[in-house]
């Protein structure tokens, strides 16, 4: 959802203002929800491997916790700003609300570039981050998770520090832990699978059989790969994928009309999702420009890479055959492009609904961690399907009833739920 060159938080507030109008929210509720409830900004001094001390800037924003403990990732990024974190925390509030899980929205970050930090230095940042916030986060207050450039290992360091400070075991403090160390089965697949659960329901609504559809996907990371896998399993055919080529510093599309094989392509890709072009060509894939994924004659587009990929300048390249866009990435469609899609009657599953499988499974992980009892994968994925399907139908029913586009309907449901929780608590 973050937008380059635009203040992401201002954008989040503008979105909120529009929906607040639709909902006719009172002034106090608007004021409360336009801004985070709490913001933490702090310094993390770390003795580096060379013996010098460097001070890193850390943040944690708790946008709203009327519906439950705050939930959101921790990003390690050199361009991290408080406003980016505020925007992302706000969007987390809506995301948790749209899938109706009892959590609020939060986000955290540290201004740093892990590419230039040793494992020990990263560990010290993680521990320092927790030391600064140990009183303000925890299983019943605020539950962090991995995000940009953080992983399960970072979560374990943070958990260890938190437990050392509080003198006990609190696996529910943090999610995204490895399976066997308090993590949940199905977490890796959850976001991509969630996208396809929503696609499946949307196709039924559009009267399309999955096996009669084709899809084109942008991205070949975790979300995209699992989305492709499940979409193929329900009968669909992915004919094109696009991904970033590190060597060329440009994106490239890979097309095979008979359908791509996700395992085959994964076997010739690197850990960032970049695909070896020569090997792909040997496997029968046609190489096309990076934007070509958008123009494929398919029924479904799944942008599952980064933000701002369907824009005003390329939205008209979207093939007329496209009936559905499922936003696996955060903010892949700009507001201008969104307008073009609306005019063309394309059904859009908005990002914070389509990719909510990740946070839903994080919620499951937290529940399991708090119980210290872990479910089998069948249990996790069936619950995920139930949650995602129910959320999709709640949004599509409202869209239908009130003549709204899916994105607006999703915002209306989410913001209304949070506003209602604030009213129920007597805050406004």
């Amino acid at each position, binding site marked *: 959802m973050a937008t380059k060159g635009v203040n992401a938080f201002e954008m989040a507030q503008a979105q909120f203002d529009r929906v607040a109008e639709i909902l006719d929210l009172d002034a106090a509720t608007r004021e409360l929800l336009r801004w985070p409830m709490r913001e933490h900004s702090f310094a993390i001094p770390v003795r580096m491997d060379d013996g010098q001390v460097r001070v890193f800037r850390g943040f944690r924003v708790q946008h709203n916790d009327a519906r439950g403990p705050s939930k959101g990732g921790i990003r390690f990024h050199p361009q991290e700003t408080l406003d980016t974190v505020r925007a992302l925390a706000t969007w987390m509030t809506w995301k948790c609300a749209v899938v109706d899980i009892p959590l609020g929205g939060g986000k955290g970050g540290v201004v740093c570039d892990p590419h230039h930090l040793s494992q020990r230095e990263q560990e010290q940042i993680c521990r320092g981050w927790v030391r600064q916030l140990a009183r303000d986060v925890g299983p019943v207050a605020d539950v962090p998770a991995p995000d940009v450039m953080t992983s399960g290992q970072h979560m374990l360091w943070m958990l260890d520090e938190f437990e050392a400070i509080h003198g006990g075991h609190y696996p529910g403090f943090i999610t995204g832990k490895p399976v066997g160390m308090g993590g949940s089965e199905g977490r890796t*697949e959850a976001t991509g*699978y969630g996208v*396809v*659960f929503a696609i*499946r329901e949307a196709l039924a609504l559009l009267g399309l059989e999955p096996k009669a559809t084709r899809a084109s996907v942008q991205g070949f990371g975790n979300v995209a790969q699992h989305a492709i896998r*499940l979409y193929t*399993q*329900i009968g669909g055919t992915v004919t094109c994928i696009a991904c970033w080529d590190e060597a060329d510093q440009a994106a490239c599309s890979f097309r095979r009309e008979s359908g791509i094989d996700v395992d085959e392509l994964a076997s010739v890709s690197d850990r960032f999702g970049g695909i070896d072009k020569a090997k792909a060509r040997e496997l029968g894939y046609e190489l096309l420009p990076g934007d070509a994924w958008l123009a494929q004659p398919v029924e479904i587009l799944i942008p599952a890479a980064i933000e701002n990929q369907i824009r005003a300048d390329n939205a008209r390249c979207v093939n007329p055959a496209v009936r559905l866009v499922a936003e696996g990435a955060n903010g892949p469609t700009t507001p201008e492009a969104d307008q073009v899609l609306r005019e063309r009657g394309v059904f859009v599953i908005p990002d914070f609904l389509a990719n909510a499988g990740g946070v839903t499974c994080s919620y499951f992980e937290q529940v399991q961690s708090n119980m210290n009892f872990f*479910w*089998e*994968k*069948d*249990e996790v*994925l*069936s*619950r*995920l*399907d*139930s949650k995602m*399907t129910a959320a999709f*139908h709640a949004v599509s029913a409202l869209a239908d009833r009130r003549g709204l586009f899916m994105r607006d309907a999703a915002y209306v449901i989410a913001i209304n739920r949070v506003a209602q929780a604030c009213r129920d608590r007597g805050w406004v």
Partner: protein
Amino acid sequence: MIQTAEDVPRFDRRLADPARRVSRIGTGALGGKAQGLVAAARILDARRAELERPGLRLDVPALCVVATSVFDAFLERNRLLPLVAEEPRDERIALAFQRAVLPTEWLGDLRAVAQEARAPLACRSSSLLEDALSRPFAGVYGTKMIPGRQKDAAGRFKGLADAVKFVYASTFLHEARAYRRAVGEQAAAEKMAVVIQELVGRRHGDRFYPDISGVARSWNFYPAGPAEPREGVVSLAVGLGKTIVDGGACWSFSPAHPQLPPPVRSARELLDVTQRRFWAVNLGAPPPYDPMAETEFLVQPELAAAEADGTLRYAASTYDVRSDRLAPGLGRAGARVLDFAPTLVWGELPLVPALRRLLAACEEELQAPVEIEFALSLPEGEPARLGFLQVRPLLVSGDEVRVDEDELRAPRTLVASTAALGNGRAEVRDVVFVDPATFEARLTPAIAAEIEILNRGLVEAGRPYLLIGFGRWGSSDPWLGIPVRFDQVAGARGIVEAALPGMNPEPSQGSHFFHNLQSVSALFFTALPGGPAVDWSWLAAQQTVAATEHVRHVRTGAPLVLRVDGRTRRGSVTRGESGAP
């Protein structure tokens, strides 16, 4: 006839509409059992007015079929095919299947099925080979009941997921493999669908069960007295139908002569050969976790429990010791005998005419003799509910074999029977027989295990054989006969039920065990007391190939010829012309 899953509406979790009673999850094939059920539901829909009568409501309980594409995806994605190809021990298969994950795209639907369930559920196998007209596989694959007792959806879902995996695993267990081998089918040809169906019955404290369950066939392989094969046969039991399909003690009668007394010498004898226990779903304290046990959620109480539950009203008579007679009903004190006299003799329940109409309707639809399974729920003050649990075509052989009465007494006749079953001719040179000198009823479980060992060797050597023993083969009650499973005798081309004092050889009419042997064209020779019997001395003189403590395997010099005339029910086993001592 319904062929593929696409002929049945997709399960839609948004439409939890009780009227939408038949649905499916997945694509591909439905399997034999599900096809029959869907056909039965359509017959009922089309002919309800003709079939229903006041006081008896008919329905096919709500069901959802998990079609074979889910099975295929389960095996492939969990990489189970290499494992099952190794044919490992049952425990290894069971563990691997329980650990495997059901296909993601169908998990949400299964969860919704579990969530909607109000009554306990039955998970039944419905395979491509099973129940097909030419190869009925009834009872070979797993069935599991799920209590639905758990208040939380998670508990119900877990029970359902475990049960589906149990049915999948049962496709590859030892018994199923042996069966497929015996009928010449490859494992690769088999695919499994699963029928998830609401159980018919009522709750009584910690138990849930139907007042009466039954199996009705429109063709009787075991006609007795004035009964004709075409009149069919019905078997009834109190509680779940497991009593009948496992070959336990139940009540069998011809629907054309429901009041005919059974072939016993005294009413006292009925106490020994009628149902004494019944199966029910356990709604009480959770049992020890054992997902691979078919009986995990089942209990088998004594009849007294059913009487306390008030479910014997239409099923029991009372034995009067002084007169050695039975009085229908529960009006006086005494031992209860489940002869269903209030229903069959007094006609308090219009069951028999309803079954006759149903058998005829199902025969018309399937264009073949049929077997139906049903269950009755008889709530006080409400119409009785007759629920269909299964419909399948029956295999009836058409070969013409003639056995004259004279042959039964011919000198070369080794075994003779006037109550033979099946129809056809076969030749064998191997005979496995239970030694009459050492036989005792208490030893039957050990004898079953010994037979299994000999059977395995004969199947591996590709040698069909004749099996001779005492009492009711395949009985689940070791005191009534030798409790073998089908796979333990799968290589037998002929089976003899020899008479011995204290063992009642009256066969169980509804047993899947007999049905399965019939389907592989095994011939039965029931040697009734006082009738033509077995030439034991000749058998004892044959060359011994192997012997266990209670069982011998002998080989004859010349082939033995097995023949059964299905029309006259005469059957004989005769010694060949040369080489025999």
